[in-house]
């Protein structure tokens, strides 16, 4: 099928630059959107990319936190005369769909790393001989970019969609009811939730939940949230307030009240006081995502319940008021437990995925230099593997017979057998449903 690709400018907030690429890649994969890079993205706030449908870009923008807005890019050039020339050559029909007689429009002049006065901006617009109104249907942006390196292109794009920057403000810690001194920054929380590719209805756990910032972000994107924390006072909102002006905490400060504040209470499941080193989850429980910000021992202690005393028991008479003793829960142990826990309790997003780099044919004398996949059907693909010889084999290496690769024919027919069976059961179910639905009428 032949798609027609249009060029767009993605304009990012120049913040948390490191997370930008990962966020966009996660969302493209979550929504199964095809996006082409016209140039390899660097740390610049502008990316020039292509999409085959405006809906794709709207979907992407509806979830992205790092994106400021997206513009259909008509042309860009290094100098203003060049830009005007290019614009004159831009196909009229592509432009005219935005210039219907009943639609108002406005032109915005934006600059990056340089300030223009209003008069200067108007001059820039006049140069295009266009009209600007205050309440337009269509916004055109004219951007002059003086970015990190001078000499970068000004652009003239049409605004398609804007990202979720306003959400960062909505869940700001400044106005949030329950916060603590380790509450995670809203923008990073949202980026984390996006990188976890949280979908509507996903069950999400934060095992070191604290004040639940990550749960707010996860619920914002449709997650149903659970959290655990070792700190009883924290979950009950009874730790010392972290706001300078606040003397005592309000009665109902809690993760739940934060969810209420943002109208997300219907996505709040529960939080438990629990030491992550001894979790209470059933062995077969699977979470769709685990997002967390574990303690690292500076702002908060890295501790778990335990004692170094041998054969210690709590005396009966102290049981009701006993506060369990803690021992050091070293960072390396926390990470080991977290990865083990995740391996066990995360839902497998790619069932049947039996490809990994390690199962490719390999030889100690041949270095894999390229590996490109071509999809053949829903369940199969083939790869072009390019090797470079880097050593001459020893006799032993010549005799090597290592081969962990399963026969393709064998695998192929296993998968096909499954899908055939699935199809048959589905057909049987539909027949049964139809019988129930229409059967009665036929009997009459």
């Amino acid at each position, binding site marked *: 099928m032949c798609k027609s690709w249009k060029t767009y400018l993605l304009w990012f907030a120049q913040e948390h630059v490191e997370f930008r690429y990962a966020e966009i890649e996660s969302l493209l994969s979550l929504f199964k959107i095809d996006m082409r890079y016209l140039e390899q993205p660097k740390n610049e706030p502008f990316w020039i990319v292509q999409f085959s449908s405006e809906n794709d870009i709207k979907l992407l923008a509806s979830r992205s936190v790092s994106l400021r807005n997206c513009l259909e890019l008509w042309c860009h050039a290094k100098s203003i005369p060049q830009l005007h020339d290019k614009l004159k050559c831009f196909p009229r029909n592509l432009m005219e769909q935005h210039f219907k007689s009943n639609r108002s429009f406005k032109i915005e002049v934006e600059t990056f790393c340089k300030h223009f006065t209003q008069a200067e901006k108007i001059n820039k617009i006049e140069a295009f001989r266009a009209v600007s109104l205050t309440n337009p249907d269509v916004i055109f942006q004219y951007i002059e970019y003086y970015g990190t390196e001078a000499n970068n292109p000004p652009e003239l794009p049409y605004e398609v969609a804007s990202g979720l920057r306003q959400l960062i403000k909505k869940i700001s810690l400044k106005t949030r009811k329950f916060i603590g001194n380790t509450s995670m920054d809203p923008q990073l929380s949202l980026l984390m939730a996006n990188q976890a590719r949280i979908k*509507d*209805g996903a069950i999400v756990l934060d095992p070191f939940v604290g004040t639940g910032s990550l749960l707010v972000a996860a619920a914002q994107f449709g997650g*149903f949230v*659970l959290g*655990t924390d*070792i700190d*009883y006072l924290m*979950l*009950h909102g009874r730790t010392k307030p972290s706001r300078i002006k606040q003397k005592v905490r309000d009665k109902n400060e*809690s993760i*739940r009240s934060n969810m209420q504040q943002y109208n997300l*209470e*219907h996505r709040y*499941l*529960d*939080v*438990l*006081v*629990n*030491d992550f*080193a*001894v*979790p*209470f*989850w*059933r*062995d077969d*429980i*699977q979470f769709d995502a685990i997002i967390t910000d574990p303690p690292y021992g500076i702002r908060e202690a890295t501790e778990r*319940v*335990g*004692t170094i005393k041998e054969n*210690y*028991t*709590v005396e009966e008479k102290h*049981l009701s008021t*006993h506060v*369990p*003793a803690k021992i050091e829960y070293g960072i390396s142990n926390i990470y080991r437990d977290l990865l083990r826990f995740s391996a066990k309790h995360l839902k497998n997003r790619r069932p049947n995925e039996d490809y990994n780099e390690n199962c490719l044919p390999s030889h100690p004398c041949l270095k894999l230099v390229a590996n490109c996949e071509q999809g053949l059907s829903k369940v199969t693909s083939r790869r072009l593997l390019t090797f470079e010889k880097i050593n001459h084999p020893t006799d032993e290496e010549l005799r090597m017979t290592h081969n962990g690769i399963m026969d393709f024919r064998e695998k192929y027919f296993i998968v096909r057998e499954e899908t055939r069976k699935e199809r048959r059961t589905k057909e049987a179910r539909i027949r049964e*449903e139809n019988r129930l639905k229409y059967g009665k009428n036929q009997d009459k």
Partner: protein
Amino acid sequence: MKLLTHNMLTSKCMKGVTVGYPLGINVSDVRVSEVDFNPEFVAKIIPKLDWPVLYNAAESIGQLEDLPKEVIDNFENDREFLKKVHHVLLEVDIINGELICPETGRKFPINNGIPNMLLNEDEI
């Protein structure tokens, strides 16, 4: 604490406990409040539930209403049924009470909706 969460918990991690499931429940204060109904979510959760455990838990706290003893066929398309499940899973909230380990009888208090599963150092 919601019955959905109860369905997911075991006290197996305690010293000397082998199954620790399902946890018993004592309630002193249950709150039932309306929660937005999301039929897709409920339908997605049902196959993952331990239904008899949910049924017995709802019964033990007097919130069974007319929940069927077994999951019905073709439940995805039965709005009425999904609504009932939604109610026991998400609208019933145990505010104060306790969870009980079925093997040792150890009690885990629930205060203000939050279960305290913290063990003592001699229980792990």
